[in-house]
Each structure stands twice: as C-alpha cells, then as structure tokens.
C-alpha cells in the first residue's frame, strides 16, 4: 500500500506544479492498477475529458483562474477519495510515509507501484527466416528472445535488416523457417493460431485504413474481445481519454493526422487489455513531443499492476527506444550485434564514446585532451565521434570544454547506447 501513497503524492505534486496532462493520465492509470470504485473512475475520466477538451488548458492563461482552481480542487478531492478508499488508515491520520521512488532503467519517469513480475509471454529459440526473392536474398540470423510481462523489448537497426520480419514472426503473421517459438502465458506452442493471435495485439508499420467513426472501431474491437455493454462503453471512454484522443473520437480515419492514426491504433490495441503488444516503427509517424508522450504512455501502461503487458517495439530512433526499453536487440547487416538487457549494454566497455557538434576543429580538441591516452576523433558528417578512455567521463569532457569556452551545439554520451555499434562501424569504414 505504500506504493499507492507515493503515487498519489506524486500526482498531487504534478497538479501543484501545473503538469495537468501527466497528472490526469496518471490518475487514470490508478484505475488500471487498483480496484477503485466506479464512481471515482467516472469522475477521473470526466476531469481528464475536461482537460482534453481544452476547457482547462484555455483557462491556464489566467483569464479564468477561479475555474482552474475549481478544477484543481476537484482533482485533489478525487485523490483524497481514492486515497481514503485504498488507504483508509493513512487518510485518517493525514500522514503518508514517502517511499523512495525507484525508476527502472534509463531514468524512465515511472514511479513504484508498477508490475515487476517475471512471467514469460513469449520465448523463441534460434528462430530464423530466409527470403529467396528473384532480386535479392535475405536471411535473418538465429534469434533467441524472451518477452516478459512488464518489460519493453526494443529492436533497432537499419532498414532491411529484418526488424519487421522478426516482429511478424512473433505476432504469428509470418512462419519461421527454423527454431522454436512458444507463448507460455497463452498455453505454450501454438496449435490453434486463431486463438493465440486473438491474444496478441500487433500494430504493423503500415496500418490499414479504418472505416466509419474511430470510436465505433474501438467499441467493435473491445466487443469482439468480449468486453460488452456498459463495460465496453466505459473501457472505450477510458482509453480514449487516457490517450488524449477525445478530440477526434467522432472523426473518421481520413480526418486525422498520421500521428493520431498511430495513437488510435494503440488505443485499439490497448482497449482489450492484451498481454503481448507488438509495434512496428511507431515513432516514424510522430513528432518529437508526440514521440515522448507515446513512449511515456507505453512505459506506464506496460507496467500496469492489473494488466501488465510484454511490449516488443521496433524503431530506427535508437535513443528514444533505448530510453524506455528493458531489453534491446540491435541488428546490422543481417547480423545480431546485441541482444540483451539494456542496462547491461556497455558495462564492460573499454572506452567512452561521445557524439558532439561543435565549431571547434578536430585538431583543437585533440590538443585539449592530449593528456588522455587513446583519445580519438572521427568525423561522421557534421558530427564528431569521440573515442575517449574510461577516465574521461562525459562530465569531465563537458567541463573541460566549458573551461575553454568552446561552444557545443549538440552532445550525447553513447557509451551505453547501441548506437555506438552503428557509429563504430562507420568509424571503421572511414
């Protein structure tokens, strides 16, 4: 019960600091994680709806400060009520003991109270696929893979390296040439593929057009998965407001942008609470802000206490995917460069690698860091790739640049990022 206390406290802080978007989303997440009365759920959805409909956002300008205060007061009251229902003792004493928030890998903004189980959803052992087309031949190397509830596994790599192939095989859309695959949570090795595929949510890279109203499609999908009647109505409203889609719920497919199409696809996948979610290149359609929002939502929903998921996601946006992934697979030139825990990547490295864009020349930098043995610079386009000894950390590197007042336009430490595999190859090729 401590975790709910921390979460509620965190949400209160978000409301107080004006992060209403995150606060309302996290309130809705409480209903995914805990059994809370339906009346509070309705109120939570209503508050989120008011936010989504810009009723509150407009008032943030200060013209209707009183209304904002009213809205905030209702949010706080709702949190009080939820707290009272879930933690009657603490609510009465008025004292909530804070708990240290344990963020998972890469500082994902996920508070405690998340699913941290180890249930395997999917397991593959040395699955391969080979395409013999008239114009080219492609072969996916043998892949071992385990997808667990509450974990996000990302697969990154260049185009044509087999990301989609692997995703399709896991989704049951493509047959593996060799190797074994099973879905332990669904009953093991698939015999009845229809039944198994009914439990897998798969969002392909090129999604098919939806016909009719978007909201009707969500109702249909939910009903088809056994969520009917009032529950269907509530679940669809919940997911629409949770993902901030209420503005377009009565729109049609052709009336929304590519980014919203993807988010509606996500809503369609999540509305029936799948345990395995597979998404192919979702970030390609999203702008930077939408990418962050999308990944943040994905992280939150993956770790839901009541309905945790295993997520397998492909992308070429290495850093964004790495920031939310628990496991990572990197494929390059048909070779499996890395397949393991994200946090384990780069721990046994013998150098640090930085990316930097600066007006300073390579010679100037080499002179500046001449004391560090093994310091090397390679130009990759307008970005310089710096190979530095472990003693030269990113903090020290930046501090030294600051001392010399060298302008830095862009900097990233890729020592523990799979992108260095890509950069290393580029450097070697030069």
């Amino acid at each position: 019960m401590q975790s709910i206390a921390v979460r509620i406290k965190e949400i209160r802080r978000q409301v107080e600091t004006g992060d209403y978007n995150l606060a309302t989303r996290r309130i809705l997440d409480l209903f995914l994680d805990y059994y809370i009365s339906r009346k509070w759920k309705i109120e939570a959805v209503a508050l989120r709806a008011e936010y989504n409909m810009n009723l509150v956002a407009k008032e943030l300008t200060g013209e209707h400060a009183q209304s904002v205060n009213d809205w905030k007061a209702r949010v706080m009251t709702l949190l009080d009520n939820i707290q009272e229902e879930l933690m009657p003792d603490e609510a009465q004493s008025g004292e909530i003991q804070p708990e240290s928030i344990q963020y998972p890998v890469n500082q994902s903004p996920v508070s405690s109270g998340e699913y941290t189980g180890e249930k395997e959803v999917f397991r593959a052992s040395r699955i391969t696929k080979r395409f013999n087309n008239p114009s080219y031949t492609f072969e996916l190397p043998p892949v071992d893979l385990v997808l667990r509830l509450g974990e996000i596994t990302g697969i990154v790599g260049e185009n044509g390296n087999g990301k989609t192939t692997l995703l399709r095989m896991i989704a049951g859309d493509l047959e593996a040439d060799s190797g074994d695959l099973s879905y332990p949570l669904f009953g093991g090795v698939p015999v009845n593929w229809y039944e198994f595929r009914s439990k897998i949510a798969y969002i392909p890279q090129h999604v098919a057009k939806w016909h009719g109203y978007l909201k009707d499609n969500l109702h249909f999908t939910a009903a088809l998965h056994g969520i009917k009647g009032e529950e269907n109505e509530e679940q669809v409203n919940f997911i629409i407001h949770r993902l901030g889609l209420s503005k377009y719920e009565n729109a049609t497919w052709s009336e929304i942008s590519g980014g919203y199409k993807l988010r509606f696809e996500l809503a369609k996948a999540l509305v029936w609470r799948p345990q395995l979610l597979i998404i192919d290149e979702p970030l390609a359609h999203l702008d930077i802000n939408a990418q962050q929002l999308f990944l943040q939502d994905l992280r939150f929903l993956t770790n839901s206490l009541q309905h945790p998921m295993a997520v397998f996601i492909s992308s070429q946006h290495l850093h964004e995917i790495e920031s939310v992934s628990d496991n990572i697979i990197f494929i390059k030139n048909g070779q499996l460069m890395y397949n393991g825990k994200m946090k384990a990547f780069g721990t046994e490295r013998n150098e640090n690698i930085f990316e930097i864009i600066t007006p300073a020349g390579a010679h100037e930098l080499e002179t500046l860091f001449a004391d560090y043995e093994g310091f090397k610079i390679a130009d990759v386009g307008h970005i310089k790739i710096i190979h530095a000894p472990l003693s030269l950390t990113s903090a020290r590197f930046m501090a030294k640049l600051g001392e010399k007042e060298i302008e830095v336009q862009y900097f990233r430490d890729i020592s523990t990022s799979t992108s260095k595999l890509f950069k290393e190859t580029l450097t070697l090729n030069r």
Partner: protein
Amino acid sequence: MRITESFTPPFLKDTDRRLLLNHPTIWASRIHHLVFWAGILNFICFLWGRFHPIEMNNQPNTGVSVFFIFIAQAMVFLYWVYNVKIRGLEQAFGHFTRKLQTLDVFISLAGVVSVSLAMFAFSLGFQLNTRTLITKEQLVKDVNTLNIGQTILFPKYLGRGTSTPNYFYEINAGLPSDLLAQQLDEEGLSAVVSAIKNTEEENRYIQEFIHTANKYRTSPFDYPKALLSTGYFFSKQPDSLKNELLNTTFYKNYSAENVFTANPVTYEVNDNIRKIGESYKPLVNLYKNTDFSLFLFITGWITLVFMAFKRTSIREAALAAIAGVLLNVVAGMTGYIVGELYIVVFYSAYFMLGFFVFTKRNHARVLLLQKAGLALLVAASPLLTLVLFKNHDTGGNSFFPFLSIVVSFLLWFLAYNPMFIRLMARPKNQ
C-alpha cells in the same frame, strides 16, 4: 458516411449501437442496415408492381421493370458486400466462436434472401394489379378460359416447338391483343374450339398436351401478362364461342378461377390444381413450388460465393468473379448447344488450373487450401447453369435444386468450420 447517416432513422441507429456494444459479429455483418434498406426496396418494388400503369390494350413491358429492379438489387447487394468486407471480421482476431460462425452463415443467407425478394415483391404487386384490372373489367369469366391458353404459353417462351397450333403461341406472345384478334382468322378460331371439344378423345389430347407443357415452368413475371392478354383476346370473341369453351369438361374440371385465387406465383398446373386452389395454404404452396426451390438455390449459391470472397482480397475476388461469369457464359452456351456435361468439367478444370497459377504467390501453403476451396466453388458454378437447363428438361424436377441446396449448406459449414478458420490464421510463409 455522414450522408447516409442522415437518412438513417433513429431506431436503426439505436439498434446499431446496441449491436455494436453487445453483438459485434452481427454488427459487422451490417444485416440490420441491409434488412431495413432491402425492406424499403421490396416495398417500393411491390408498390411499383401494384400501381404500375396498366391498361387492357396497352400492357407494360415488365422486362424493363425487372431490369431496373435487378440493377437496384445489385447495387444494394454490392454496397452491402463492400461494407461487410471493409469491416474484415475474420481478420479482426477476437472471440469468434463456433456459434458466431454458424450465426454468420445464416446472417449472410438472410441478407442475400432479403435483397433477392425484391423481384418477388414486384411480381406480387403486379399480379395484384392485374387481378384488380381483370376484376374491374369483368373479365374473370374470360380469363377462366385462359387455363387452356396459359398452358400453351410455356413452350413459346422457352422457344421450344411442339405440335401446338401457331396461333396459340401468338395469343400469348405479348403482342397487342387487338392485332392478335384480327390475325386470328376463322380457321384458327375453329381450331381452338375443336381442340377443346368436349369429347373424350380430344379431352385426352388436351390433358396430355397440358401435362407436357407443364413440364416447363414459366417466369412469374410473364404470367399475369399472359392472363391479361389471353383474357382480353377471349373477351373479344363471340359469346357462343366463349360459352362453348366454358361448357367443356376440361374447364369444369380445371377451373382457373381457383388457381387465380390461390396465388399466381405458386401456380403449378397439375391434376390436383383444383384441390390446391380449394385448400389454399400459401406457405405450403410456396414450399412445394419448384420456383422457390430454385430461388433458394440461387440465393444460397450467391451467399456461398459471397462468404468465400469475404476472406480473399478484392483483386482475387474480382478476378474470380470475372472468370466465373465468363466461364458460366461459355459453359452455359456449350451446355445448351451440346448438352454434354464434360464440356463444363473441362472448362472448370482449366479455370481451376489458371486460378492456382495466378494466386499461388505470396500465400502460405495452408492458405492454398482456402484458395482451392474458393476455386472449387467458382469452378463448380457452371453447374448452376446446367442445373437450370436440366431442370427445365426434366419437367420441373426439384431434385437438382434440392441437391444443390444440400451441397451448398455442406459447403457453408465446411467453409466456416472452426478448423478451417484456424488454418487461415496460421502464419504465412512470406
């Protein structure tokens, strides 16, 4: 969509909503919309037939109406198929149980039947229209004599020669009755009278003739017109002739008044016609009538093809449909001219081979089974043409339609067998 929605009555919208939230399979079938709009179409067709301008000496060409009704039916049907297709129930993996699969079969059949009934609605309206006119014109007695003329009508419409005097054909050929009356010379009239003389020998001849003629079923759309035409012709004849006709044993035994009262659609002249007329039971008559069996067969066949096409791509469906139509034309013509079954079998085999070659790429081996099923259905469709011809040749024998219905049902359940659905869901190999 919004345009069609503005024409949708509130009760239909409510039904749609209820089905969407509780019965997604039925909702996706769009049967509720189809039945509503097909009901309106049927009602309009009935009114069109019932209040179609008609005069004794200016009988309308029902073929034009039938043509436009066919176009309307085709449009409604295709719009329905499109709406069902885009919702892709089979692709939306969900709780698609055996019960729902069976339900979907009957929904599809009901949909096809509801559209197909428009022709019958028109026919019914037109028959009532004709009957009103005949009653109004006090031609009932004259029409009674048609009992003879009607039976002679059939060979003419089928284009088959018998030993019947030519002017009997002309009477029923739909030519202006006045013109017929002028053309029918004294010799012809004498032949009519002599043909139905109340002698045992002639009566036997007439009965044999009727028995032969009744082997050929007539189109229900021509029947009221023939009634009118012949009735009008006889109304122009001298009373002495009419009295002579009405006093024949034949007329007394086979009173057309009873037949007419029964229902022209279900009309089938046989030795029990009088009894059927007296104990009028529409449903029983409908069931007994071979036309209805054929109707069921055709609608069943369309349903079957429709359901097979639901699972294939638009391209494949279009190719199969075009090929099927062409094949039917060729096979039908060949079958009609040569009358040999092997011609049809030859074309079917040829078509199946082509179909397999054309569609074998990009499909898993197991999906070829589905394609084989579809190919088989389409390839077997020329049998429909053959059955129609055979049916006439066997004098309205209902064995073939009955057998076809049984086979169709078996194929439906084969096509919608859960095992087949499971096979469909298996991963592709490309």
